[in-house]
């Protein structure tokens, strides 16, 4: 179990990126985090991954305090961050250097197949599209089989079809080993499709605004009964979290803007 306890982060320049954030994530739970740009989502994941130190509060995984990168925690960065001098296969297997070649190869092939990049295993990162690079970076985080998987907007550069298929793969993988998953997204539909809970964050300073339970059976499809109402609850919370101001600069409080959420995928921030 992952517990985030009264976490605050003030950057050196005084930016209050997080303030008093507490969140308990059950083992095997999927939590989706949504919120406007700059509300501290990436900061939160970096603290959980042990890359940065919190100003106050603590992160524990199964009781153990995280203050440095931990083998049980895997992180896929918001940017792909592939190492340009390694082929796709070696990028995906970057966290497995200590393993025997055969085992590593098997795991890497499996992960690349899951993200649909088997055919590209021997390419250089520069030869991949942005979305493909992002998928390699997801594979790299998956391969070591972490107990807690942190994904920072992992599917943001993908088209709807690829995205849907990766949702399925992610859920299939989750079904096998039941890792705890924290996924940051700007896509409300994605949040409702994947999350057991959707956490809405609020900027300035970054904090939790509302948590919405999504009690729908998986796999979830947008036309399922209850999907729309869950989506509406998240959208409404998002709207409230941004105070109807920052979503559409220049058209603050425009009521027409508020009437559109039902039209499907929308990007926030």
């Amino acid at each position, binding site marked *: 179990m992952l517990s985030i306890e009264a976490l605050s982060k003030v950057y050196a320049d005084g930016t209050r990126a997080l303030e008093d954030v507490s969140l308990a994530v059950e083992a095997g739970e999927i939590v989706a985090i949504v919120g406007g740009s700059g509300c501290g989502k990436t900061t939160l994941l970096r603290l959980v991954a042990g890359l940065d130190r919190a100003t106050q509060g603590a992160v524990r995984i199964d009781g153990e305090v995280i203050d440095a990168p931990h*083998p049980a925690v895997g992180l896929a960065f918001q940017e792909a*961050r592939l*190492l340009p*001098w390694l082929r796709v296969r070696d990028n995906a297997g*970057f966290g497995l250097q200590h393993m025997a070649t055969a085992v590593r190869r098997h795991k890497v092939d499996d992960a690349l197949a899951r993200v649909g990049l088997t055919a590209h295993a*021997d390419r*250089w990162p*520069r*030869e991949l599209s942005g979305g493909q690079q992002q998928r390699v970076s997801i594979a790299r985080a998956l391969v070591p089989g972490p107990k807690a998987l942190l994904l920072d907007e992992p599917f943001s550069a993908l088209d709807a079809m690829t995205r849907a298929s990766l949702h399925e793969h992610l859920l299939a993988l989750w079904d096998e080993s039941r890792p705890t998953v924290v996924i940051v997204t700007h896509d409300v539909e994605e949040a409702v499709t994947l999350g057991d809970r959707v956490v809405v964050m609020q900027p300035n300073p970054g904090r939790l605004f509302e948590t919405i339970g999504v009690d729908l059976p998986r796999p979830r499809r947008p036309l399922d009964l209850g999907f729309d109402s869950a989506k509406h609850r998240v959208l409404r919370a998002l709207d409230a979290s941004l105070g109807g101001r920052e979503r559409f600069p220049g058209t603050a409080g425009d009521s027409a803007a508020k009437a559109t959420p039902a039209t499907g995928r929308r990007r926030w921030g």
Partner: protein
Amino acid sequence: MASVDLISGRPPAADAAPAADAGGAATRRPAAGIWLVGVVLPLVVAVGWEAAIRFGLVQGRLLPPPSRIFDTLVTLARSGDLATHVLATLSRIGLGFAVGAAAGTAVGALTGASRPLRRVLDPTIQALRAIPSIAWVPLFILWLGIFEASKVTLIAVGVFFPVYLGVMSAIASVDRKLIEVGRVFRLSPLALVRRVLLPAVLPAWVTALRSGLGLGFMFVVAAEFMGASEGLGYLLVDGQQLGKPDQILAAIITFAVLGKLCDSLIVALTAPLLAWQDTARDRL
């Protein structure tokens, strides 16, 4: 389009070959023998020069025709003198380059990786760098004598600075984001150096070595000017004193060939390590 193709000497299809296709590397390789294009200009100049002298358009005394220079080269080669001089020059460069490049790499890596060390060392090194290396010559001769030690030292000093500068700034500017990838996977400091820092600075290191080598060639001439009984620099001085422009030009041409060969050697040896680069490198 057509003019672009003429200049690049390559069919447009080869340039446009999408990197997307798995055999991309093979399709993008220029046709064998394409380098011959680069020989055309010197060849034309040589032939024109030869012709100008043959037809009496210019006098060939101070500007000997290519055929005479070629004869001089052949004579020097036959007698074994050329090999002796080339070997003498190459061993000076080889030793000086090895020492200078090793020291430049080591010191550059340390100062690049450690900010406190950089604060302490870099200002001094930069100040030393500002001194024209030739200015050291009298001191080196006083300290180390007129023979090999002072020559090799001068070359090593010349090579040191560009290598130091290249490695130091490359290490200091490795993308923090990639280093974080290493941290997420909990690499030890040593593994971080080996798996992230080193590969990241490799291209800059090769560039630094190449400019170091260029300076090595510059300083070997200076070193051999200050008194040597063999070496290409000696051939130059000797040719001037005896009024033999063909010997001077023969030595200069040998320098050109040697310099180009050594540079190509560095490029060829490191090419497999840099295949991942997304640059126009193979076109340079």
